[in-house]
């Protein structure tokens, strides 16, 4: 039961924030390329889903799973994208991501007059609160190294 990593992208595809807690395998490419690949994959999945969908969708793409991990996705109406990779036991992290947006991002970044929206999030307070929040999640448990 664990959270592997978290990405936050803005509406233009820039990665604003990334942190990992339990990542076993790196992607084999540089971090910049990984962010671009992740954003590109999500953009393509969203377009794929909107074309494939047999009915009109309200929330759109929610998550996908492979044999080893599950990727949860939450997009705000302003185009901010929250992406969290967890293990397979977490079925629905949408509320977690909504909480991260409304109680952490809005409180510590949007309401912070020093933080310019659109830049990478370098607020120490945001990082530490987010880290504490993730570690406090019921489904988070630090793996033995």
């Amino acid at each position, binding site marked *: 039961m664990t959270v592997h990593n978290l990405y936050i992208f803005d509406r233009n595809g820039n990665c604003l924030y990334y942190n*990992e807690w339990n990542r076993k395998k790196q992607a084999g490419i540089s971090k910049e390329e990984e962010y671009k*690949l992740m954003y590109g994959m999500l953009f*393509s999945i969203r377009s794929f889903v909107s074309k494939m969908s047999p*009915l*009109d969708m309200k929330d*759109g793409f929610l998550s*996908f799973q*492979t044999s080893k991990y599950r990727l949860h996705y939450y997009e705000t109406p302003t185009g901010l994208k929250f992406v969290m990779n967890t293990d397979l036991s977490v079925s629905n992290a949408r509320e977690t991501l909504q909480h991260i947006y409304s109680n952490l991002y809005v409180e510590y970044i949007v309401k912070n007059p020093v933080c310019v929206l659109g830049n990478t999030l370098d607020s120490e307070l945001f990082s530490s609160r987010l880290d504490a929040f993730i570690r406090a999640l019921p489904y988070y448990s630090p793996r033995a190294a």
Partner: protein
Amino acid sequence: MVIFSVYVVNKAGGLIYQYDNYVPRAEAEKTFSYPLDLVLKHHDEKVVVSFGQRDGIRVGHAVLSINGVDVMGKNTAEGKDILEYLKDATNYPVSIRFGRARLSSNEKLMLASMFHSLFAIGSQLSPEVGSSGIEMLETDVFKLHCFQTLTGIKFIVLADPRQSGIDALLRKIYEIYSDFALKNPFYSLEMPIRCELFDQNLKSSLEVAEKAGNFGAGS
């Protein structure tokens, strides 16, 4: 509790089989008077609603027919450009039917190849060692299940999110593929599947899965 469609993709990412089991078509037909209060635009050889959602007509819906006559892409059945036709006040009142655009075969081919690539990227970006590609993709309206065989063939099923037993269905479709496509001496590997027995058996196994799915969810 429904299975929407089945796609089979070969090793190279090309679509070799596609079957639509259930295609819900939510359409809205309304009569309009000049001027039209919806904003329409050209998109992908179709005319779609870009602004002005109301009464069952959503953004993204395409113009399906005008005055009861089906349209041909961007033009009416007579060959006139739809946007020009609707700008002319003498053509009103006009009855237009809107709905989700049906996917053409080309679009299905492109989407299957797109999924083939996304499947691989899902495996590459994995934070865990030894991950497969995307096996299940969930949205609020449908769930897409994918089973990749050892030979690289992908069986993709789009179903209702509450439908159960899709894993067994995917294995069953693989069995039907090996029985009626692979064992068919006239079938070439990686080519589009045109075997009647494959179609028939696939349809009956989908019916069985839909009925069984109801029992599974009810208990």
